[in-house]
Each structure stands twice: as C-alpha cells, then as structure tokens.
C-alpha cells in the first residue's frame, strides 16, 4: 500500500489523538494571523496612502525667521526653489489662527491653512466627492478638536472669528461665516493638529488682516509660512534638502514624520511577530511530543509494518507525512479562525476614531503570499518537529518494536 495513502488513512483513524496538537497549533496560528493581518493591512494603508505619495518626496521649508539676509517665503522664493535640480514642484502653505463658534457656545481655535495637493488629508466625511480645491468661504476641519465633535457640523454654516490688526501686539475680533464642507481623520497632523483647510484667498485674506499688511502686498512682503518642495524621486530628497538648506532655509523631510504607525497598530504588529515565534516553538515542540508519544504507543504497529516489508524510510515518511497533514489541517483551521478573529478585532478597532482609517475591509488576513508562506511554514515546522522521534521509531528493528510477540 502506498505510504501516503496509508498516512492519510492513519490521520483520519487517529484524529482524536491528533486533536490536541491540531487545536494548539491552529489557535496559535489564528491569533498570529489575526494580528499580522491587522498590522499588515494598516501598514498597507499607510504605504499606499502616504509612502508612495508625494509626501515621501516632500521637503518642508520654514520661514528663515532669525536669518535677516534670507528672503521670506514669497512667490519669488518659491520660483527660485523650483529651479533647483531634481525639484518637481514647490507648493506653498499659509496658516493663520481663527476660531469656530459652535451652537453650544464653544470656541474651537483652529489654524486656517492653505491646501497643498501633495499633502491631502484623509477625509472621513464631506459634502462632495472632490473637496479640493476648496471654494472661497469653505473650510475643512479635523473630525474632532479640543473635545468638540465637528463632524456633526458638516454641511452647515459656522460662525468664525478672525483677528484684525490694531497696533503691534494688539488685535480686535471680527466675526464672519464659513461653510464646513468636510472633516478629516484627526490623526493627520502634518499641518499641526488643529489645521482647518480653506481656499488660498480666504487664508491669505485672514492672514493679511491679522498682520495689518494690505492683502495685495502680503505675499510679496511677509510671504507664506511654509513651502513644500517636492523632489522628483524619493532618492533625490537628501540632495534637494541640502540644496535648500544651503540657500539659508530651514528644511526637513517628511519621511521621518510619516514613518510611525499609530502606537496600537505597531503594538499589534509586534505582538503578531512575537506570536509568530511562539507559534513556531509551539508547533515544533508539539510535533516532537506528539510524534514521540504516538510512536511509543504505536511501536507494535511500526513493528508490524516493518515485519511485512516496509522499509525504514517508508515508515519514517509515513510518520512525518501524518504530522505534516495534521499541521496542514491545523494551518487551515488556523486561517479560518484567524480570519474570524481578525474581523472581530477589526470591528473593535473601527470603533476607535484614531484607528478606524487604518482598518480597511472586514476580513483581515495577511496578503496571500504571506499567508501561503505562513501555512507552508507551519506544515514544515510541524513536520520537522516530528522528524527526530519518527526516525527513532522507524529505525527500531521489527522484533524490538513488537516485543509482545
């Protein structure tokens, strides 16, 4: 009889005795897969949403505040930076503080900010599909800020308070109106935690009003508060950064700022990786123990097989294949359980505003390649664990194995 079909028949017949191993390995695999699935998906969201975007190629240039010889971040400066080698584009940002007054009487202090196409915030609720470019009088705020849920106000006109210059160090409040057309995930903090995006003329207008400078001169004299230089490729970023710095401007890259996942997801990933190690050890030790115990119980059987002409190698193959099949069953069960576990965890995480944008989809499993690799690895580890005890059993002489003849 074929060794493989015999091994399969044995697994079926001995399934009760293999149950413990299968349960152990499948639960470990499930937890591991669930954790890796969530973390992997979150990583994927970050990768596609941020890393492959312009952000990874962006260099932030701030005002040369304490350098008198260096020109402010005017349109001319922007044009100059745009001519540096390996620069794809230069985008500007102006920012000025203002307040939003809610019906409940709260004042939320925000920063009116111009939108840069290279760095679009993750919108979670909006009145229309393509929010940007914004029209004058429209604002986009964080979903929550300073404890106030602003997402409830989407689509409404809100009262705003801006500042008018009176004399240096003194201003007076001016009330106005803006339409809240969308909110974004508050974990997006590239433009400060309380950035509220508005159309360029709106922001420049408010900023000029606050500075006392005529609006038409503002960009030529005071200029933007930040420029974003986008390099052609991510590899050009260091060189471009240096070039900008040589011109006397403080410049930092966004790469560092974007590297970190939210802490919880990072922790889940670490847990997943630790569990992967634990799974490996569990599967291995489990296979060693179960194979050892089973082959002691089945010494008689092994002796019979050898007596009727099975070679040592055939018996070894049979025992290892049995364990590999058990490992495969465990891995498949683990995948199903892992998918369930991942979905439950995803549903829980989706309840958290900070994490929701990273948890896409309902059934979270690692990508197919990783999944297959994990499954193969589980089978391999279980089979490897069975090897030594199986070899010991298979090499017994038939008469020794069947002592009670």
């Amino acid at each position: 009889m074929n060794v493989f079909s015999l091994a399969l028949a044995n697994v079926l017949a001995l399934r009760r005795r293999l149950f413990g191993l299968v349960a152990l390995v499948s639960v470990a695999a499930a937890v591991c897969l669930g954790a890796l699935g969530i973390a992997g998906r979150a990583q994927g969201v970050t990768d596609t949403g941020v890393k492959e975007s312009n952000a990874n190629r962006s260099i932030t240039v701030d005002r040369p505040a304490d350098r008198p010889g260096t020109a402010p971040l005017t349109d001319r400066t922007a044009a100059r930076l745009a001519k540096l080698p390996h620069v794809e584009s230069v985008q500007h940002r102006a920012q000025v503080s203002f307040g939003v007054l809610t019906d409940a009487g709260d004042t939320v202090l925000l920063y009116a900010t111009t939108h840069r196409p290279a760095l679009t915030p993750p919108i979670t609720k909006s009145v229309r599909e393509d929010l940007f470019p914004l029209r004058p009088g429209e604002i986009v705020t964080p979903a929550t800020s300073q404890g106030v849920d602003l997402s409830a106000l989407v689509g409404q006109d809100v009262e705003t308070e801006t500042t008018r210059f009176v004399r240096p160090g003194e201003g007076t409040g001016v009330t106005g109106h803006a339409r809240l057309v969308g909110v974004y995930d508050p974990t997006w903090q590239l433009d400060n935690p309380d950035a509220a995006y508005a159309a360029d003329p709106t922001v420049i207008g408010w900023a000029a009003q606050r500075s006392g400078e005529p609006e038409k001169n503002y960009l030529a004299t005071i200029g933007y508060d930040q420029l974003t230089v986008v390099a052609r490729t991510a590899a050009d970023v260091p060189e471009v950064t240096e070039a900008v710095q040589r011109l006397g401007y403080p410049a930092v890259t966004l790469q560092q700022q974007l590297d970190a996942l939210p802490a919880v997801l990072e922790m889940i990933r670490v847990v997943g990786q630790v569990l992967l190690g634990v799974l490996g050890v569990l599967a291995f030790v489990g296979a060693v123990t179960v194979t050892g115990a089973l082959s002691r119980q089945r010494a008689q059987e092994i002796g019979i097989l050898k007596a009727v002409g099975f070679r040592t190698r055939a018996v070894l193959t049979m025992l290892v294949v049995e364990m590999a099949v058990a490992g495969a069953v465990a891995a498949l069960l683990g995948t199903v359980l892992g998918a369930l576990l991942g979905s439950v965890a995803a549903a829980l995480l989706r309840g958290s505003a900070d994490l929701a944008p990273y948890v896409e989809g309902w059934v979270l499993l690692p990508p197919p390649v990783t999944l297959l690799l994990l499954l193969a690895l589980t089978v391999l580890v279980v089979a490897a664990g069975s090897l030594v005890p199986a070899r010991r059993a298979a090499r017994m002489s038939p008469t020794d194995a069947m002592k009670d003849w």
Partner: protein
Amino acid sequence: MNALLRAEGVGKSYPLRGRRVDVLREVDLTVRGGEITALVGHSGSGKTTLLHILGLLTQPDSGRVVVEGADGPVDTSGLGDDALAGLRRRRLGFVFQSYNLLPQHSALRNVLLPYAGRRAEGEERARTLLARVGLAERADHLPGELSGGEQQRVALARALVNDPPAILADEPTGNLDTDSEELLLGLFRELADEGRAVLLVTHNPAVSEFADVVHRLERGALVTSETQRKKGSAK
C-alpha cells in the same frame, strides 16, 4: 519438492545476566514447498528466534539463511535492511499468534497493507483473498469487530497478498478455539497443496500431527522426524 527456505549452520545467543546463552547452535533447517513443516519444542527453546531468523526479522550470529527469490535462491547474509525488507514483503508471508492487524484500519486495508503492486489491482486481490478465507462480507470491519479466528484469517490473507512462496506462522492457533483452528489448518493445507512452503511454530500436538515434517528444538539443536501422515502419503 524444492527447498524454498533454508537455514545453514545458524547460531544465535543472547546475553543473560552477564553471560551469553546459546539459543540456537549450528541449526540446519530446510523448509520445502508443498509441505507443512512444524517446528515444536518447549517454551523458551528458541522456536520464535529461529522463525524470526528464517523470516529475515532477526540476523543470526553465525550461519546464513537462503530464501527463494524471484530468480532463484538468494543468500541473505550481508544484505542491507532495505533488501531484507523487500524480500520479506514479496517472498515471505507472516502470521502471528496475536494476529498483529492494525486496529485502526479495516480488514481490507490490513490485507492491502504490504501490497507491492498497483492500487486498483491490489483492492481486487485483497477482496479475492478475503473471500478465500471466508470473510468476503467482513472486508470493511475493523479488527476489533472480528473474532480471534476471523482476525487470524485476515492476517493470513495479508500474508498472501504478494503471493509469496513461503508462509511463516508463529503459534497461529495459540489463541483460537478448535473450530477456528481447524478452519485455519485447512487453509494452510491448501497453501501447501499449491506448492508453497508453510512453516508452523507450535507446541500444540494437534497442529504438529497435521504437519508433514516435524522439527523439534532441544537445547539449541534440531531433531527431525517425518509424521505418520507424510509417511502415509509418500506410499
């Protein structure tokens, strides 16, 4: 008939409390096709040891065993484990006192276990053999669901699955009632009549009387006699 299994000058000793005890000394034994050969002797006289040596399950300390291979006699001394396993599988059939079926598998699968040919033919052959030992209806039963006599007949069918020229049986009726014993002995007789060599280890006089040749092991040596039956049929 021709010699299908032969022990030549076989010696075997086991260590016992620091000294070696000779179980077999210079034993010569020939098992011929077409005959039932019985091996008798009191308990501990070395019958099982000799059967295991003839069955290539144990290596002798001295002497050699010659087995009838597919292309004539094969001297098995110096053969590796795999070659010995191959000879056991194809050229020898074993029946044990305690049946030694795999408890988790059906009668059919137990019979099929050593089968060396193609799967589709194997199943048909296994069913034919089960029918031959009167168990056609019990092919799908587990050993635990069969009586001792039935299990032993499954074991006999298993021994025959590769059509070996020699059958070795160690106390095959030791655990059986007289009816089952008679049934089994009848089957052994059929096998001998087909030209196979049948070697029965027994301490049961009823079994040895049934044999054509009886060898008695005494203090490690063989004393041989032909039975009444053999003398009668030779005339």
